[in-house]
């Protein structure tokens, strides 16, 4: 059992938890992920590490309430426990030697873009952060991003905060203006990462996307998390989760990510009915 040391709602559907897991905290690096189960009957949920405190021995996770399993997780209280917490999994994001990088995050993906931006900043790299959200009430981690970025761009789809538009607008302008980056690192919805990759491709700037496909074991056994990269089958849990964004077959990944949409919708409905009953 792993204790939930701290729990905080970042916006109506995004939750932050600090989980006591000293061995994982000691090893986890930006870009790696953990798998947890809320309770004994729970699904194995893969979540990219949003930060860790090696002194206290905690790992921070930030997750969006999407289906049944994340709903169950969100009901757990500070001081309570998750049944299982395993990691760090996957290969860390390669940041060595990078001097000037654009980090492009979207939605809850910003939670995992932040530790990458922070790690880059800490090694003296000039970080340009571009973050996008649907609207003002969904914005998370703005201050944290500002603290580690030389340049910071806030975008919302509806213009209710920052600039109106998606993350490719400022990115496109920077690139068109002749801005040179060693690398662009993008983490967020698949469709956003696909467009970020398309925006950087003409300039030949190396672009890395952090994939978050459906997973079960997360240790290189089940083969569920396969992604086509440059025509080859790769497994996000051991070969990734970072891949060359110019080579990823995003269209296939988007279709695969929708495999259990119907199941999740049903699970959500069932959970909501349970909540209703409790309220009644």
């Amino acid at each position, binding site marked *: 059992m792993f204790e939930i040391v701290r729990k905080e709602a970042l916006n109506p559907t995004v939750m932050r938890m600090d989980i006591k897991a000293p061995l994982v905290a000691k090893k986890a690096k930006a870009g790696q992920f953990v798998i947890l189960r809320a309770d004994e009957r729970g*699904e194995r949920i893969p979540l990219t590490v949003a930060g860790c405190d090696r002194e206290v021995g905690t790992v921070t996770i930030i997750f969006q309430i999407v289906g049944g399993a994340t709903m169950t997780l969100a009901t757990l209280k500070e001081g309570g426990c998750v049944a299982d917490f395993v990691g760090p999994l996957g290969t860390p994001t390669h940041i060595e030697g990078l001097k000037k990088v654009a980090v492009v995050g979207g939605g809850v993906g910003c939670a995992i873009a932040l530790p990458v931006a922070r790690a880059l900043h800490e090694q003296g790299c000039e970080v340009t952060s571009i973050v996008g959200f649907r609207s003002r009430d969904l914005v998370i981690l703005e201050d944290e991003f500002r603290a580690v970025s030389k340049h910071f761009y806030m975008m919302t789809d509806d213009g209710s905060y920052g600039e109106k538009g998606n993350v490719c607008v400022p990115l496109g302008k920077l690139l068109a203006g002749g801005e040179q980056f060693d690398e662009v690192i993008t983490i967020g919805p698949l469709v956003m990462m696909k467009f970020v990759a398309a925006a950087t491709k003409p300039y030949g700037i190396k672009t890395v996307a952090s994939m978050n496909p459906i997973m*079960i*074991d997360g*240790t290189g056994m*089940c*083969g569920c998390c396969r992604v086509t990269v440059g025509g080859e089958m790769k497994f996000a849990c051991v070969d990734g989760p970072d891949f060359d964004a110019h080579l990823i077959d995003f269209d296939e990944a988007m279709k695969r990510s929708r495999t259990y949409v119907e199941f999740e919708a049903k699970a959500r409905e069932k959970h909501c009915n349970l909540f209703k009953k409790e309220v009644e």
Partner: protein
Amino acid sequence: MPKFNMDPKKHPMPSQEPLVRNKNFKEVALGYDEATAVEEAKRCLNCKNKPCVAGCPVAVDIPAFIALVAEGKFEEAYEVIARTSSLPAVCGRVCPQETQCEGKCTRGIKGEPVGIGRLERFVADYHMAHSSAPAKKPQPNGHKVAVVGSGPAGLTCAGDLAKLGYDVTVFEALHVAGGVLVYGIPEFRLPKAIVQKEVDGLKALGVKIETDSVIGRVLTIEELKEEYGFEAVFLGTGAGLPRFMGIRGEGAKGVFSANEYLTRTNLMKAYEEGSETPILHAKKVAVVGGGNVAMDAARCAKRLGAETVYIVYRRSEAELPARREEVEHAKEEEIVFRLLTNPVEILTDADDNVTGLRCIRMELGEPDASGRRRPVEVAGSEFEMEVDCVIMALGTSPNPLIKQTTPGLATQRRGEIVADENGKTSLDGVYAGGDAVTGAATVILAMGAGKTAAKAIDEYLRSK
């Protein structure tokens, strides 16, 4: 000495009716009762040269335990098996006895061999049901050994070392111990409660089990040795990433590796109402491959409600690598065999859902390196099968994690860990066995490797 029973046939295994069992996940084989076990045991001739023992990878003293069963001394029979086997209830169920002990049985020359597997299972189940005596903890010898992976190789190695007094810790990546016994082999062939009891038995011997621990990530082999004081390490990390065919459509929705399909179904209990892990409830399923894993996946698909389940295999029935018994069980459960058939493309709709499998007919040519006749495509014989789910059961490559994170550990080109006949690897004090060394094989071979390595580790630590 009891009188021999000269019936040329084994006592049949009581089983659930095929068309009942293919709709539930309860165990197919129900096991002998006491009277049947005694009668079957009387078929053993108690041969002096014990050919059956030579056929057993863990060298169970088969005639000795069977003689005790014939006398109704079931608990004593268990003690004989337990001397050499750590997991008798598992072996009695999943060992390929027909090619091992029973394949060597003298009675098999002029009839059916003694039902050794069925008797082993009976004895193990009898023990579980009747014994309440706590296991005797061996005298600790003060030496620490780490075992990585809690599948059949790891559990056997851990059990044997614990019996010798070693302080053994087993590290398991998943949330429950058992490895392939819990994520791979389905409930209806090996109930998970049985695996749990075997694991509990090891804990009673003093074995510690650390779940949720991916060695190579959270701790490296070097850290286990240098920082945690383990004097030897056994690697039983098992089979790894599934192989695919490299044909078009393998990324489509409704295509699974057998590992994924079985893990969702078995480990995550997706077949149970209330499980949070989803599974596709397909109507027409094609399982590609002919091994035991393919049979397991096909039989799971049927139980999950598929109307039609095909086994698609490129060679003929004689070459099916699955155990004969598994093939028969699958056929009884109305699994349809499409033999001498090889997929060339997975067909999909606009939304990338599987709609069919385009296949080509095959014929057998000259024998290949494996000694089996090589399947050759029949030109112009392509045809389509209508399916909404394809499960690839084509074997696996070893897990890459340990290799990636353990400098100096020699591996084969494909990633299998290099180990000698005693399980010794290229690193001092590091031993390995099971699928991680051999590539995908059987539970009992992994157990044999775990056993051999335990002996080698004991000798290594004694000589230090």
